[in-house]
């Protein structure tokens, strides 16, 4: 149990280390999700031919 606590604490630098990894995870995940969603939406729009002019 203490080893887990030590792991999270990171020798007192926990906040710094984990926020770094957190930001990285969020940014990467966003980069995965955005194109997938855009791709799906675009395909639907092309099928329905929803364009201007």
């Amino acid at each position, binding site marked *: 149990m203490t080893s887990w606590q030590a*792991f999270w604490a*990171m*020798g*007192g*630098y926990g906040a*710094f*280390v984990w*926020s*770094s*990894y957190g*930001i*990285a995870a969020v*940014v*990467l995940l*966003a*980069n*995965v999700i955005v*194109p*997938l969603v*855009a*791709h799906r939406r*675009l*395909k639907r*729009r*092309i*099928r329905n031919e929803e*364009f201007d002019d």
Partner: protein
Amino acid sequence: MAKSAFMRWFHRFGSLPYFYGVSVPIARALAVPGVLLAAWGVFAGLVLAPADYQQGDAFRIIYIHVPSAWLSMFGYTSMAVAGVVALVWRLKLAEIYIVAAAPIGASFTFLALATGSIWGKPMWGTWWVWDARLTSELILLFLYLGVIALHNAIESPRTAARACALLSVVGVINVPIIHYSVEWWNTLHQGPTITRFDRPAMDLDMLWPLLSAALGFTLIFGWLTLWGMRVQLLWRERRSRWVGRMLENSR
């Protein structure tokens, strides 16, 4: 003979429907090892590597910071190369690559800046200083944003992509400045420790996870960019017959 075979491959790969088709297996081939390598690197860096004798556990930010920083530079350089191809050979795929890579590269640049300043707080006692390395990395972010903004601003997609190609080529001059900034000016940021391949000044237990993470993130970069390219391609070719047919078939 070899050349003509190469050219045939080049043209076939340049064909948009062909590329759209093969991009799926290629993306998969990048994603799986990429995620595995990155995950192992991060795991090993967080758990297996010993704490640094000076920085303690804070140094573990390196496994995000350094790959992001490298990729920010690599990404822009690759866009410049693609820019040359797009301008000289008018290869549509190269244009699309630039447009797709810019946001991904900007993301990694942002990560390098964010993790760097988080790391800076415990190490240097401040989130941000206006030194050469940090500022030039910030400028790199602006270069990326410039490409994105230019692309958004110009309505005709072809013109927009070609303008971005030219801008990437011109802007690449900043990349060496970032790299050499630590040598040309005395900065807070530390000098090259890993990229001196003759004698890496780093414990091997710390080094291997870093290299693994870096390679993994590079593959992930390729994977994400490929997806961006697919979206761009579909948007640009939305009126073409092959897109219509493909969507019919996949219904």
